[in-house]
């Protein structure tokens, strides 16, 4: 991996961490678990399109792990974040490569998969009763559609601007 790619990956990780911290400081729905803007996930979306699947996967893992370490999340919250991040990433990969839908739809599907993954972990680890999980899923899904749309639209224009600026860099996964 070239020094340029290492540096770019490091910057993406830092940006994802900072955005994650910012959305923690400015909650859109105080007290509601799982309802957030998903700014950090926007970086993963960008990485998926620009740097490739492997980089995006590593970025997601680092984002989840380092966020837990830096912001003092409990092991339970780490598992929940990991479950959401993994489901989101797999959905976005599938949506992009198999369904070939636009980036905004990829983002929406990723956001919905994120909350579904989080609730799946909550249910499987029996963190709360099932009746709470089933009742909360529609609410989280609605918020995910809204935030996924927002991050998708921003991601679309961000990609366009950065591709023009970088003259379409090749993905990091290709040497």
């Amino acid at each position: 991996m070239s020094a340029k790619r290492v540096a770019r990956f490091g910057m993406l990780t830092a940006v994802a961490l900072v955005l994650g911290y910012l959305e923690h400081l400015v909650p859109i729905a105080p007290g509601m678990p799982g309802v957030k803007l998903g700014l950090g996930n926007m970086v993963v979306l960008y990485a998926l399109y620009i740097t490739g699947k492997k980089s995006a996967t590593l970025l997601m893992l680092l984002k989840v792990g380092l966020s837990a370490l830096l912001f003092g999340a409990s092991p339970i919250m780490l598992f929940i974040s990991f479950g959401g991040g993994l489901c989101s990433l797999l959905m976005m990969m599938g949506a992009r490569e198999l369904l070939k839908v636009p980036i905004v739809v990829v983002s929406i599907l990723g956001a919905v998969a994120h909350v579904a993954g989080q609730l799946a972990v909550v249910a499987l680890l029996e963190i709360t009763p099932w009746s709470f999980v089933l009742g909360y899923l529609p609410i989280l899904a609605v918020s995910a559609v809204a935030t996924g749309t927002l991050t998708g639209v921003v991601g679309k224009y961000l990609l366009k601007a950065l591709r023009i600026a970088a003259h379409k860099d090749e993905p990091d996964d290709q040497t």
Partner: protein
Amino acid sequence: MNKQTTRRRFIAALAVLAALGVVAAVVLHKRQALSNKDDVEVIVYIGNRVYSRVGLGEQTIVVDQGSGAVNHVRVLADRVYMEHASCNNQDCIKQGEVSLDNYNTRPLYEWIVCLPNQVSVQFSVGGAP
């Protein structure tokens, strides 16, 4: 208008309809409000397991799991709320109170949930699950 544009607009329209459908389901999913507080039970769970069941009335349920995870659930004559929690994010405190007036209109409905400590409080009305 070419096929690709049509396809994209169709997918976008489907996504919007699906979103509207979910919103409608959430809005229409309401239970009838009860004014009789004798039909209310406050159930405290640790994980999926019932820890305590009480009726409304002034008391504090202390959930001390011995690993530093401590929650104080305050039950009053007409409402319940999380008075204290040892978790980092304090989301359960911010979720506020559940009462007969708001249990079916709150975002979390009849629930107060502390995910880090795995403590959930259900304001169960009329024996609802």
